[in-house]
């Protein structure tokens, strides 16, 4: 049953250098290139999640509960060229502490530094209410939102309690997880 295989003799090819036909490759590259250039996302869109106030049927805490568990309330007032950080305490009716910052990158960095310190000292602070003047452009509001959400390089994330529930769609490393646009009221 043995079979003998005979090697075919190679026919002598044409003389001269061997050439690769690159035309199909160029065709393919051109098509792929056009597709990728058309489908590429050069400007990606992102989102910043915020809430607006709503009426709740939950009864407000009693004075006893407030005295027992006093909390800091942070309000940021956005003006055309400045930002005011307003810090009050739930158990006192004293005038809130106010700090004014310029509405520019260095001023906003100072604002973030201040809130960061407060949050490091008291991790229960997880909410900021923003009051915006009516003539403030949206771009400036987004700058303030960025400051309240995204930590500047060099500021490590604030550790959260294991059972802390970060609102849906908010980064766990955000400086302030809950942002409320305060003056949207009926």
């Amino acid at each position, binding site marked *: 049953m043995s079979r003998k295989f005979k090697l075919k003799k190679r026919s002598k090819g044409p003389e001269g250098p061997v050439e690769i036909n690159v035309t199909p490759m160029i065709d393919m590259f051109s098509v*792929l290139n056009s597709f990728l250039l058309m489908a590429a996302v050069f400007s990606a869109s992102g989102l910043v999640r915020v809430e607006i106030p709503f009426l709740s049927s939950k009864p407000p805490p009693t004075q006893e509960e407030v005295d027992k568990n006093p909390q800091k309330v942070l309000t940021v007032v956005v003006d055309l060229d400045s930002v005011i950080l307003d810090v009050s305490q739930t158990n006192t009716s004293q005038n809130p502490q106010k700090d004014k910052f310029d509405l520019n990158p260095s001023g906003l960095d100072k604002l973030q530094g201040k809130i960061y310190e407060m949050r490091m000292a008291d991790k229960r602070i997880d909410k900021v209410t923003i009051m915006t003047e009516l003539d403030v452009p949206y771009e400036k509001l987004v700058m303030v939102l960025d400051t309240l959400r995204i930590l500047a390089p060099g500021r490590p994330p604030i550790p959260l309690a294991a059972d802390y529930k970060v609102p849906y769609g908010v980064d766990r490393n955000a400086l302030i997880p809950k942002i409320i646009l305060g003056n949207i009221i009926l």
Partner: protein
Amino acid sequence: MAGVELGGDSKGKFSLNLYPMIDIFSILICFLLMNFSTQGESVETRKGLELPRSEVRMSLDTAASVSITQTEIVVQSSITIPILPTGDVPESELLQGGLRRAYEELTKVKKNNETLKNRNQAMNLSDKELDTLTLEADKKTQFKLIKRVMLTAQQAEFISWKLAVEKNSLD
């Protein structure tokens, strides 16, 4: 590379060197393939709408949307409300501080969402994003207009917003 015989008396061969082009194509394709992102919804860019830039890392997803361009307010691509040169909307469009036609449209959306929510609950599916609206506003839009839109949405029982921005860095 194959050459083409030139006509005339010339006995030389003309050849087009394609290697540099192939090199450039290869590099370009490598770059594009590495940066190719299938992530993120693309925002339909309307005329007169330039999103503000942000350091945010979250990508856009689908939700009912309201767009505020420099000239109009568009609700769910179906209702268009003009913006006056004063930066406000015509008096005829207003209802209790909000926008009448936008309110009607958002109420419809809310109603549909409720139906969807009930269906999702029956199928144990998540419906966290059904109560959320996406706002695409031009970076120069004054807050008074945003407030009006948000007030309208609040009247239609939407309290969560996703503000669309342009990412500073491509993640």
